[in-house]
């Protein structure tokens, strides 16, 4: 018995994991690393590493292809859902996902995400909402909260001149092509465990050929929020989650014909 167990363990060791063993470039306390791990975990658990193709966005997480051991295409800012559409149409038997920040998905790429969702493209989108442009140094994002100070809203976001935080899940929930929509956060171990289950489910929705799935992750950006990592997770719970409530918006049973 012990021998059989040892053999099994050896097999597991041989199995290539999706999360690469590399040094991170993300800032201390950043949420991206956690979400990368959750995506990698979902891919491993579903055994789909060898048939998964990811799309890297423009932003801090453009380098996601360094962390996940799957094929990747790096595409223009905001266009990930269009490129994912091209991949999925050419390779319908593969698993295709985009990983996009709020500037990428909710600002420059609004048209692409809305239309990919509306077509019910059978792809999965991991949407990182940290209410700020991280890579360019903390400018106002479409998801920046009212009164939130950024380098381009130094007096706080004013709705009269800069509009309101864009609520992506609420916006997409009215589209018939959308199969699964849920907003989670990675602000506490409890929330991370929840996010882990939700991200895996989003991939399951694609595997079941149900159509477009998107998980919005409220993610902390201590560096650009000018906060300590501890304060930043508190801010996600106490402030950000008020504007962007954590909840399931849609989970269809329908399978595409």
């Amino acid at each position, binding site marked *: 018995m012990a021998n059989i167990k040892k053999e099994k363990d050896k097999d597991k060791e041989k199995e290539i994991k999706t999360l690469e063993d590399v040094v991170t470039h993300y800032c201390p306390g950043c949420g991206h690393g956690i979400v990368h791990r959750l995506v990698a975990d979902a891919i491993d658990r579903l055994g789909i590493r060898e048939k998964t193709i990811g799309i890297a966005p423009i932003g801090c997480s*453009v380098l996601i292809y360094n962390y996940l*051991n799957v094929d990747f*295409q790096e595409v223009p800012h905001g266009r990930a859902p269009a490129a994912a559409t091209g991949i999925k149409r050419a390779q319908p038997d593969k698993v295709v996902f985009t990983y996009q920040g709020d500037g990428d998905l909710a600002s420059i790429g609004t048209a692409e995400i809305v239309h990919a969702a509306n077509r019910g493209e059978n792809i999965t989108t991991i949407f990182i909402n940290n209410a700020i442009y991280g890579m360019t140094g903390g400018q106002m994002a479409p998801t920046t909260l009212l009164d939130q100070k950024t380098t381009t809203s130094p007096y706080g976001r004013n709705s009269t001149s800069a509009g309101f935080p864009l609520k992506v899940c609420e916006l997409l929930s009215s589209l018939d092509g959308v199969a699964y929509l849920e907003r989670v956060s990675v602000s506490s171990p409890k929330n991370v465990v929840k996010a882990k289950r939700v991200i895996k489910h989003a991939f399951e929705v694609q595997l079941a050929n149900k159509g477009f799935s998107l998980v919005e992750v409220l993610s902390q950006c201590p560096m650009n929020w000018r906060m300590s990592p501890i304060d930043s997770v508190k801010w996600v719970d106490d402030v950000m989650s008020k504007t962007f409530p954590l909840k399931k918006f849609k989970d269809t049973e329908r399978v595409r014909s």
Partner: protein
Amino acid sequence: MGEKQLFKGNEAIAEAAIRAGCRYYFGYPITPQNEIPEYMSRRMPKIGGVFLQAESEIAAINMVFGAGGSGVRAMTTTSSPGMSLMQEGISYLAGAEIPCVIVNVVRGGPGLGGIQPAQSDYFQATKGGGHGDYHCLVLGPSTLQELVEFVFLAFDLADKYRNPVIILTDGVMGQMMEPVEFPPEVDILKLSPKEWATTGAKGRKKIILKSLYLDPLELENHNLHLQEKYNSMQEEIKWEEMNTKDCDLLLVAYGTAARVSKKAIEVAKEKNLSLGIFRPITLYPFPYVQLKEVVKKGKVKKILVVEMNMGQMIEDVKLAIEGLVPVEFYGRTGGVMPVVDEIIEKAESMLKVNTLKGVM
């Protein structure tokens, strides 16, 4: 080759693409090329292909990115304003070395311009168009027969060089009808496999198709590699010559403008004017050396560049000629076509001045 069939230019492009092995078409409606997406929307579902009407030209070119990066023959078509929107995507395609075919059925600009034929996107097509050091291969057909053959050639060249290929044509070619013979159909299964494509990391290391190189030396090396590739494209150079050995005045024109110019040569004969034509067929790479040779070997006194724009290819002609003979320009723009009489009038005036100088 099969039998001759009467085809409209735009529909010939679509049919040629399908026969050349394209099963993935992404496009957005814009005049004067709408017959292409319409044809594709009819045919693709019947042959197991994909037709997708994108939400914009921006999305269309990025769908081509995704499909092309998957290793299949993918295509989009558009007209000038749409081509401007695609420039970002084309720069990324060139940077990530993803093959694809793009047809620009050019109309007059700038801005919304008009819907009538023009050649005013020559600079955009041949000099990069988007940001960064890159080039697309550019083919400029002047008959519908050439157009269908170039669609086949474009897919082959795209695969050979892992580079976007542009067919630069115009509303005249898109809307006119001519008999065409299609080359033999390409067997998709016999195309060489693309081992660089993102098809899932099964039994191999992961593949990343990207254009990001944060280390300046790495990016410089990438650009040097691209440049080497562009230099190697010299072997694809194509051009046509007519009456170049004995002419006094050499016309240089491509595409539709070359059709009109050829007619002008015939009519000029009756007026005892000796005209010839040099027609660049590959617009990138441009036949610089070949054009200069023609001028050096013949007795060309002057060159007249005829274009349907305000003078774009003339810059390449001047670069090629290196001041050997004077180069002048005749062009109509905004969708107005240059006509034979106008070209002859201009030719006459150029040769007359020359004769007078000779007498004095």
